[in-house]
């Protein structure tokens, strides 16, 4: 009975007992979720336009952040470094298109998936070769990112909102909005949407498939950079961040591989879910369950809706 | 013999998310006959086959096989009751050889368990060889000796269709469903395939239901024909009757409705 109490009653008692903590937990979950969502967004962009399940999105994030930090450490002014990094991400997109996607066109999806594994290893190696394996500090000030916290004394307690986290949320919203406009309003964006449905249709818009790939990968690279800056500012920029990026995978399951809103909503659900789980239920089984909770949530979800939250129902044709 | 009804479709309706694929269709297939289902594109022919072998479950109506009614049946149950099938777009196991594909059709007839399978000696091997013999008869029958060990993915389309037929035959079906067995074939290949279909029907007494676009072939091959249009049955009968049916002529000439 005690067990049942601790599982089903106690956590809620705690929530009620310290609403400020609950709010804080939710906030932390939301912020974490936003960052997961950003990584997932990169996945979705690429998957939507090229059908490639880009496992390298995580390492792209690390690589982008490392490049930025590496450049600033070399004394390049931060804004310039930012531009240069964007340039590097563009070159990366071109290289990926030229050396990975183009030769692998028409290969089964799993091959492209594996190729992004190879890409991951190459980027890790190159990244470490150039920047070394040391964790690096994100020059938040130089990038005009706020620091410090806003402390709200509410609910009989204190809810502390890091300005950085707020910035992350704002940037994420801006990016999503920007991408939405890009997809809805621009010619290239429409082509990108078309390519997801029909490669031929895209060609009729007058953009070659290769260009589209470059654009998508570049866009994903920029998203990765933004994500990298945020994560880097929260902890340090190091290759260990890549493991965290795996968290975007359950987000994808939840949101569906092709849905931008799905990535956002999925990210938030996963973020909040795992924080609540870890905070209120984790201690029951010794804590540290965050490492798999997200996957478990996604898996449970998947069993009921195999195509994800926003994915289209798969009708099998024969 | 020929009047025994093997399979009856009774008032079957099927829809996908509101889109009607089949509406209240009934017909039957007699033992030992070659039954054709024809109709313009999108008439619901393939859906009908999918209903028969349990891949789709109709919202209304029922299917009687050997006189027993069923509404929901899994495809593998259909298989174990003796319904085999080929596909419109060849659905072979591309990574396997011709022989392995045909042997795969014997799966239901093979019973040696996991233990013997790991050893691949004694009973498992004996069983494997026994079924190999059976498959060799099919290979001989379909005249595909020369591609016995070739991976099917690399075979020309016509041969793939033949292998697929072989795989279905390996199941020793009572009812064989052929979905456009001659699509994309040239004249000679069509003649060969027609010969095989007739031989199967005669030699093994297999009942055959087939979908085919080549009306000439259908008229030659089949004993009776069902004509579907937009999911409705518009005619049913022997080739001559169907050929002269006004509705059928309209459907094929595309008279406005």
């Amino acid at each position, binding site marked *: 009975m005690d067990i049942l109490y601790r599982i089903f009653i106690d956590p809620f008692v705690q929530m009620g007992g310290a609403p400020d903590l609950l709010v804080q937990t939710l906030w932390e979950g939301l912020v974490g979720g936003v960052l997961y969502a950003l990584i997932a967004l990169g996945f979705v962009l690429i998957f939507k336009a090229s059908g490639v399940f880009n496992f390298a999105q995580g390492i792209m994030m690390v690589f982008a952040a490392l490049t930025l930090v590496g450049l600033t450490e070399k004394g390049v002014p931060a804004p310039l470094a930012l531009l240069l990094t964007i340039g590097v991400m563009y070159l990366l997109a071109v290289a990926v298109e030229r050396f990975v996607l183009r030769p692998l066109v028409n290969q089964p999806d799993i091959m492209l998936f594996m190729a992004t594994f190879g890409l991951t290893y190459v980027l890790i190696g190159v990244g470490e070769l150039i920047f070394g394996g040391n964790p690096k500090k994100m020059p938040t000030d130089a990038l005009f990112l706020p620091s410090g916290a806003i402390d709200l004394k509410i609910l009989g307690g204190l809810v502390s909102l890091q300005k950085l986290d707020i910035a992350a949320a704002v940037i994420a919203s801006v990016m999503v909005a920007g991408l939405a406009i890009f997809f809805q309003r621009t010619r290239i964006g429409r082509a990108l949407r078309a390519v997801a449905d029909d490669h031929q249709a895209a060609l009729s818009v007058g953009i070659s498939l290769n260009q589209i790939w470059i654009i998508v990968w570049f866009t994903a690279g920029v998203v990765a950079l933004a994500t990298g800056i945020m994560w880097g500012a929260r902890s340090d920029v190091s290759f260990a961040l890549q493991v965290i990026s795996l968290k975007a995978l359950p987000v994808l399951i939840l949101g569906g591989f092709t849905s931008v809103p799905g990535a956002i909503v999925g990210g938030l659900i996963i973020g909040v879910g795992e924080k609540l789980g870890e905070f209120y239920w984790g201690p029951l089984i010794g804590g540290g369950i965050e490492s798999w909770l997200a996957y478990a949530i996604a898996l449970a979800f998947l069993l009921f809706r195999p195509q994800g939250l926003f994915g289209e129902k798969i009708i099998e044709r024969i | 013999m020929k009047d025994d009804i093997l399979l009856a479709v009774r008032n079957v309706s099927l829809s996908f998310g509101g889109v009607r694929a089949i509406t209240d269709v009934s017909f039957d297939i007699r033992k030992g006959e070659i039954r054709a289902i024809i109709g313009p594109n999108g008439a619901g022919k393939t859906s009908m086959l999918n209903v028969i072998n349990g891949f789709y479950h109709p919202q209304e109506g029922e299917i009687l096989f050997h006189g027993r009614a069923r509404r929901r049946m899994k495809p593998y149950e259909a298989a174990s009751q003796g319904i085999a099938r080929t596909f419109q777009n060849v659905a072979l196991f591309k990574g396997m050889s011709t*022989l392995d594909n045909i042997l795969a059709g014997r799966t239901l007839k093979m019973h040696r368990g996991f233990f013997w399978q790991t050893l691949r000696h004694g009973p498992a091997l004996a069983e494997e060889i026994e079924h*190999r*013999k059976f498959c*060799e*008869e099919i*290979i*001989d*029958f379909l*005249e595909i*000796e*020369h591609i*016995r060990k070739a991976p099917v993915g690399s075979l020309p389309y016509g041969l793939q269709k033949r292998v697929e037929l072989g795989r279905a035959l390996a199941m020793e079906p009572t009812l064989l469903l052929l979905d456009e067995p001659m699509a994309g074939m040239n004249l*000679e290949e069509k003649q060969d395939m027609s*010969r095989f279909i007739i*031989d199967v029907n*005669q*030699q093994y007494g297999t009942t055959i239901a087939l979908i085919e676009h080549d009306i000439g072939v259908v008229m030659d091959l089949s004993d009776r024909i069902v004509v579907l249009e937009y999911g409705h049955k518009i005619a049913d009968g022997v080739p001559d009757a169907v050929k002269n049916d006004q509705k059928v002529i309209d459907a094929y000439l595309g008279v406005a409705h």
Partner: protein
Amino acid sequence: MRIAQRATARAHDEGERKVAATARPAGTEDTFPKLLRHHAQVRGARPAFRHKDRGVWRTWSWSETYDNVRGLAQGLQTLGLRAGDKIAIVGANRPLLYWTVTAAQMLRATPVPVYADAVADEMAYVLENADVKIVAAQDQEQVDKLQSMADRLKLLDYILYDEERGLRSYDHARLRRIEDVLAEGRRALDDDPALARALDESIDAGTADDHSIMLYTSGTTGRSKGVVLAAGRSVAAARDTVAFDGITDADEQLAYLPLAWVGDHYMNYAQAFVAGACIACPESADTVQEDLREIGPSFYFAPPRVFEAMLTRVTIRMEDASALKRRMFDHFIAVARKWGEKILNRESVPLAARLHYALGEALVYGPLKNVLGFSNIRVAYTAGEAIGGELFSFFRSIGLNLKQLYGQTEAFLYVTAHPDGAIRAETVGLPAPNVEIRIAADGEVQFKSPGQFLTYYKDDEKARETMTPDGFVRTGDAGFFEEDGQLRILDRAKDVGKLADGTLFAPKYIENKLKFFPNIKEAVAFGDRCDFVSVMLNIELTAVGAWAERNNIAYASYQELAAHPRVYELIGKHVDEVNAALAQEPRMAGAQIKRFLILPKELDADDGELTRTQKVRRSFIAERYKPLSDGLYNGADIVDISTEVTFEDGRKGLISGRVKIVDLARHDAAGKERAA
């Protein structure tokens, strides 16, 4: 095929073959059934027949074969086959069909193998002419053909078939499955010892004078004739050559040639029955090459066109190889050409060359022979037509002991054969054992041989014409003996003519020289009583097609390719080379080719342009393509032609187009070129 096949033969799984200790040539038996009985007793467990069926090589030992043949004989007897009756065999190489031959011989009936690809009319003629009572056919296709001509064959009682598919629903009043006949016969023999005794007696009663077989010659002119061969003579002839080539029961050969051809009957039936060797039947015509590789025969016989096709395939496949590999291949083939034949002939060769050759053996020749299925071959023969020197020496140089023989149906094959160590492409060798040869005054080759035929069936008149009064057989071929005693064949005696200026004109000789080029499939030479020699050519579609592909020449049909100017250029070079070669030969220098053209369609036996053995029917072609043959001699450069063709499915159609005729420069006898 589910015929008795005991475990004995299974010991030879995986193709392991051991020389049986009991190997010794058969002795006194003078008929094939007696030979069979002998082997069943002496080497009962040794494999006699193999057939790739349902994916594996089913094998029957000699004793199983004997049992099966006896059963079949009994079954045939039940169906009414008696001594002196004729039974036709139509189909591909199948143990059951071979057994039918022996079973008939057991009953002292005469088997008559018929070309399976013959059109109904031809076949009907043969069956009618031979007074066939029963036909053993392979499958539905043959049965259908036979039934279509049933009204013409008054004597025909039964049609037997091997493969049941498609036939089940046929009216079985006069239709039997060979297997069933065999099974019934066996049952009868088992049930009734008297029958078995009677059969034994029938075997014993067989004499050397029995009509062992009747082979219909295709004949370049007129209807084919049934060559009647006697049992004793056949066995004696085979016995001689078995000894000559040392064939034993360890030998194995692939039977893939038409049953009705003397080559197959001699090599795959008579010799095997004498020596106790094993006969392997391929799975289907499509798989012969593969089956050859699997079986790996030790004795091999093929007409030149088979070797030619093989070399063509080798060349084409090598064209697609990487540059490095091609260079290696070319290098070692050059080495082989230089030393290979010498090594094969056991001449003295420098050690360095031997080593070089050994390296080539490891890298090229060995693998090549492996891919072609030649690795185990001890002796290979070619016959039927002249073989190109290049072609011949190519196979010899890579270590295949290929020899030529000259033979005739009337001789029961062997007239001459190459002895080991003295092998030249131009000659056909020394007289075979116990064969006497002489050159008649008009240059015709005449012989007397142990296997010599008895007569032509129902045509003693013709037979008498063929024989000289002193018992020699006229071959109809013109030839002469070289200094070393080897015979050299020029052409059909009646075809050898003279140009208007009296120069000797041997059309076949020129045609063969042309056909030795892989790009030329057929050649028809004209010139008798004309001012000069001219030829009509067929290109080899595979070879020229591959060449065209490499040279970016687009074509839609054979006709288009044949008329392509660059193809003309290519073929022109070949013809010119032939001229250069002819110029080197004193007898032939005058008969160089002055004009040639490439025919817009492939010559085809179905159109009567070739015989069933793929020999050109010169006069028929000249007549059929009259505008062209006229054009060759009236100086026209371009001639329009339209001609009827028969498609594969039997439909007829019309082909029309314009054909270009090309003039060539002449080589003088010293080899230098001078204006024509």
